[in-house]
């Protein structure tokens, strides 16, 4: 076997109260596409931060091309040939592509020379990108290209990519994969972090699976089923959500020509959305983030009421009603952002139970609040949804993301909604909690409620939806039965590649 490009031996990093990485060893060969797989909190981020020089390991050694490698800071890692594309972009909207790239370089050449190099690299790797465009006008996929080109200009030997596809349409993912394959063919190793198993099976040569900071398995993704990988990741047998087929009931929610102006300069206007939702069905709404998901939820929850005639619930016009009036009728919602939107971070779980439960749980007696009853309500949510917390007195912010999400979803589910709208129900939630949440949503539909599930996780939508639609630029595509729909079709519903060209390789 040839000498590995990078090898890690027994890397350990502990934070107070938690061992983030416990004796992690792995090696990456030149040109290898290596997947790093694991749930949230498994230690993936800590591991790559050590490679990129952001975190110092407590113990263990790293070797690059056989020589000891211990970057004290990202600059040292970069000069050793490590590049990293973060999940969240660090770009300035008001500046051009070239200016943004110049800002991230140690010895930036003159802008003209840099532009020429950007054009050269972008053509070589099939990443068409004009250096003079303003970043604010670019799609998420194009912004990611800026980050990738920024790394490629340093001529990296190892490229680390942190969840790169979470902001891309399937077509954009395809373009990205072509680029990554080309890089790999030229000998650049890629460390690819993701929890999307199908992607890893398509792209990666080798996978290392982390759980609770330890390496729990290695595999060749092409020869391993997604289910097996998921079970290694979670460490137990996964319950696939189940549901019995049932006929849809009467139409309960009807949207006709739902339009709303953008709430602010960074928001998206809703344009002429039409939809019929029946009792007992789940409508999955996909789409790249920022195409009107938050705005649709706000219009449906009543947070931003709309004019008459746009939303009818069981024949009643509820468009102009606020959240409390809609809750009274059984139209409930759970927004994407848990901290500060679905829940008040500094308040206790009891108070957060009161937040949306006051009307339907009878916690509000002519303006006076029944706190003992709210505590009992919070306790019942904690019990039924297995929320890990010391008790209802704990502040919402002390809960982990997954546990708080279980609480927030559970709070609405326990209120017996007739229509339930939820945005990103399992975002940032570990696999077993996500399965629990999906099962709760399916059970709710089984009981006759109508659900709208907005999500960026297409696998999730395919798993639970009866019908599927996509948001693109504030417009909703016509819903189609989810069964038998292809990824290609979904991609087109989501707006295709947003006018990006396919790589010319």
């Amino acid at each position: 076997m040839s000498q590995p490009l990078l090898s890690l031996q027994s890397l350990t990093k502990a934070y107070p109260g938690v061992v983030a990485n416990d004796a992690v060893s792995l090696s990456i060969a030149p040109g290898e596409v290596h997947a790093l797989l694991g749930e949230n909190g498994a230690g993936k981020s800590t591991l790559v931060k050590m490679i990129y020089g952001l975190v110092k390991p407590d113990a263990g050694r790293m070797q690059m091309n056989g020589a000891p490698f211990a970057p004290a800071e990202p600059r040292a890692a970069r000069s050793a040939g490590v590049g990293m594309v973060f999940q969240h972009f660090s770009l300035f909207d008001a500046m051009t592509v070239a200016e943004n790239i110049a800002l991230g370089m140690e010895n930036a050449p003159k802008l003209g020379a840099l532009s020429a190099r950007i054009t050269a690299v972008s053509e070589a790797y099939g990443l068409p990108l004009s250096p003079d465009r303003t970043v604010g006008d670019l799609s998420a996929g194009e912004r990611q290209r800026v980050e990738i080109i920024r790394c490629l200009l340093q001529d990296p030997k190892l490229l680390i990519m942190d969840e790169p596809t979470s902001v891309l349409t399937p077509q954009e993912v395809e373009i990205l994969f072509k680029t990554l394959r080309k890089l790999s063919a030229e000998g650049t190793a890629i460390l690819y972090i993701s929890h999307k198993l199908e992607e890893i099976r398509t792209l990666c040569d080798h996978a290392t699976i982390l759980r609770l900071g330890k390496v729990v398995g290695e595999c060749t993704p092409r020869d391993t089923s997604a289910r097996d990988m998921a079970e290694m990741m979670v460490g137990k047998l996964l319950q696939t959500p189940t549901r019995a087929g049932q006929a849809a009931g009467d139409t309960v929610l009807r949207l006709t020509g739902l339009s709303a102006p953008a709430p602010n300069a960074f928001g998206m206007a809703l344009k002429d959305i039409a939809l019929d939702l029946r009792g007992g069905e789940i409508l999955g709404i996909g789409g790249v983030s920022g195409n009107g998901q938050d705005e649709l939820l706000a219009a449906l929850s009543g947070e931003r009421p709309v004019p008459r005639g746009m939303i009818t619930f069981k024949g009643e016009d509820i468009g102009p009603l606020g959240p409390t009036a809609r809750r009274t009728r059984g139209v409930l919602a759970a927004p994407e952002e848990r901290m500060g939107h679905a829940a008040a971070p500094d308040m206790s779980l009891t108070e957060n139970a009161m937040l949306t439960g006051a009307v339907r749980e009878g916690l509000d007696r002519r303006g006076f609040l029944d706190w003992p009853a709210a505590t009992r309500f919070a306790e019942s949510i904690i019990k039924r949804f297995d929320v890990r917390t010391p008790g209802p007195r704990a502040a919402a912010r002390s809960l982990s993301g997954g546990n708080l999400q279980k609480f927030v979803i559970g709070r609405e589910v326990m209120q017996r909604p007739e229509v339930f709208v939820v945005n990103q129900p399992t975002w940032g939630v570990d696999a077993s909690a996500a399965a629990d949440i999906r099962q709760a949503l399916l059970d709710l539909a089984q009981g006759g409620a109508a659900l709208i599930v907005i999500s960026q996780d297409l696998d999730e939508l395919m798993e639970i939806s009866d019908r599927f639609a996509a948001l693109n630029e504030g417009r909703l595509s016509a819903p189609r039965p989810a069964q038998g729909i292809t990824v290609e079709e979904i991609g087109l519903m989501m707006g295709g590649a947003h006018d990006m060209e396919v790589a010319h390789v």
Partner: protein
Amino acid sequence: MIGLVKRPEPSRLFSLAAPVLAVLATMFFGGLLFAALGKAPLEAIQTIFWEPLFGEFAFFYRPQLLIKGAPLVLIAIGLSLGFKAGIWNIGAEGQYIMGALFGAGVGLAFYPLDSVIIFPLMVLAGAFGGWIWAMIPAVLKVKFGTNEILVSLMLVYVAEQFLASMSLGLMRNPEGMGFPGSRNLRQYASAHNGELVAGSGMHWGVVAAFIAVIFAYVLLARHRIGFAIRVTGDAPRAAAFSGVSPARLVLFCLGMSGLLAGLAGMFEVSGPAGQVTIDFNVGYGFTAIIVAFLGRLHPVGILLAGGLMALTYIGGDIAQSKMGLPAAAIQVFQGMLLFFLLAFDLFTNYRLKIGRTEVA
């Protein structure tokens, strides 16, 4: 490296200990300040904190505590409701003046009629005066999105001009031999807010302050509106999601703080002050902002803070006359109190981390 790390949950211990630590730190650094001015620090501290309560002339100063503390508490309770929700009424001083003018106006209009309904009418008028003055920034904010901090503050200066105009013109005492200022309401029994128990300093404003404390406590702990206020302060988006109307909350909070400030002004003008004069207002409306924060925006805390603030006022006066401390030094002393409170308050939600920090 010294850094701050956010606590997973607010520390109950520190939220209670912060005011005590702040008072102790103020005593210490205030003592250094007095020493630097060439005064005996221990004696100065003792004069400020001990003399008014237990000194030789305590029988005179103790009622003063109630008289000075009542308007502070009354105004601060109102302000705290808005402050909790992130609605900043900085113009309580103006609402206090308008309450006094409306209340005194009603009383003077009935002069010299003798009736038991005059004083209740004055109370209503005073509350209305403060409320309507606060509704100006409230409505402007709701309708046009103006900044309530600026508008309410500017209206203080408008109110001061009204006060001057009234004491020189419309409300001037016709028998006052040309001096500015209204008739003295102390000499008009039907409109006089006198002592309820002779020599105690207890007047209707003190009663109102205690009622306001209880009212605010129940509102915040048990009522839907109080909960809406607390949620809005913690997470405005979560409040909107739960169904709180921000506009209604602005109207309620500004209205309530204006109403209580108006009441405070009315009780003051008909009692301890006695008449409308150009220099009627002495800054209670601004000091109440400090009182509200010193009391951690909690009704009981505000009650204690109002007492403490009144103590430093009276003690400060004594220190000025007895030890020749400059008035500015007393103000610095009071400012220190707020500064240290805010500083120690940080540790309720953060803890100090000493050692190497790293990017995680």
